[in-house]
């Protein structure tokens, strides 16, 4: 069976949904960051599949998304270190100061 672009889009959707499960259900903030990276990578896969249909602009956009993921990881891990230093935990549901 010939592999069409639909297969790639389905794989990207599956990876995105798995990353979303990680973001929503896990408590550990490191794994939440890694799930966000997985979701960004799934978006990149989607963009490259569409660039196969519409031309090379999708690859340039995927490049921008990669730069964005690097910036997000740097700032997020900085926030994580500050968070761990202040609260001595890495669980997101123990930081509920704004809920009360």
């Amino acid at each position: 069976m010939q592999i069409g672009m639909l297969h790639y889009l389905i794989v990207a959707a599956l990876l995105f949904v798995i990353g979303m499960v990680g973001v929503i259900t896990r408590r550990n903030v490191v794994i939440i960051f890694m799930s966000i990276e997985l979701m960004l990578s799934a978006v990149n896969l989607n963009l490259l599949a569409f660039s196969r249909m519409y031309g090379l602009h999708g690859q340039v956009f995927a490049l921008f998304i990669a730069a964005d993921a690097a910036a997000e990881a740097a700032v997020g891990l900085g926030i994580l270190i500050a968070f761990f230093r202040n609260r001595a935990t890495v669980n997101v549901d123990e930081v509920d100061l704004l809920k009360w």
Partner: protein
Amino acid sequence: MTPIATPFFFYFLAGIAVISAIVMVTKVSPVHSALALIVTLLACAGLYLMLYAPFMAGVQIVLYAGGILVMFLFVMMLVNIEHLYVEKMLNRQWKFGLAATLIMAVLMLGALIDGFRSLPQQLVEISEQNNVQQIGQLLYGSKGGYYMFPFEIASILLLVAVVGAVVMAKRRV
């Protein structure tokens, strides 16, 4: 232009990517999750190669597997993870979250399968030989270069991210 053994390699790489993504989400230890995430990202790089994007595949390997994951492992050395094995892995609302994501998955797959016919079926000819050159022409070219200004904005974004990371990781916040 059609490459050899495409279905086998597609299912191989897609299976590795999805399975190790599931492993990443379900493992308790963040170090195991990071290793599974490396496998997923490398399989994604293989899928990028199959989509005629060798430059993005290289960027994926160098940036994600080489840079971001090393940074994750570095941070995991700084934070204490000894007590993770005795406390709960999932948060309180995980059942509702899982149900919501499954509904989202069904919606996305339904929209893809239902709406795929409206997309162009004819694939664009992308030459693999000068992929980097063509991306560079799109980024910086005097004629047909659309992305000069977004590129500068991305550099500003990276500068702000560097300053923000340094400020966040300072001794007193």
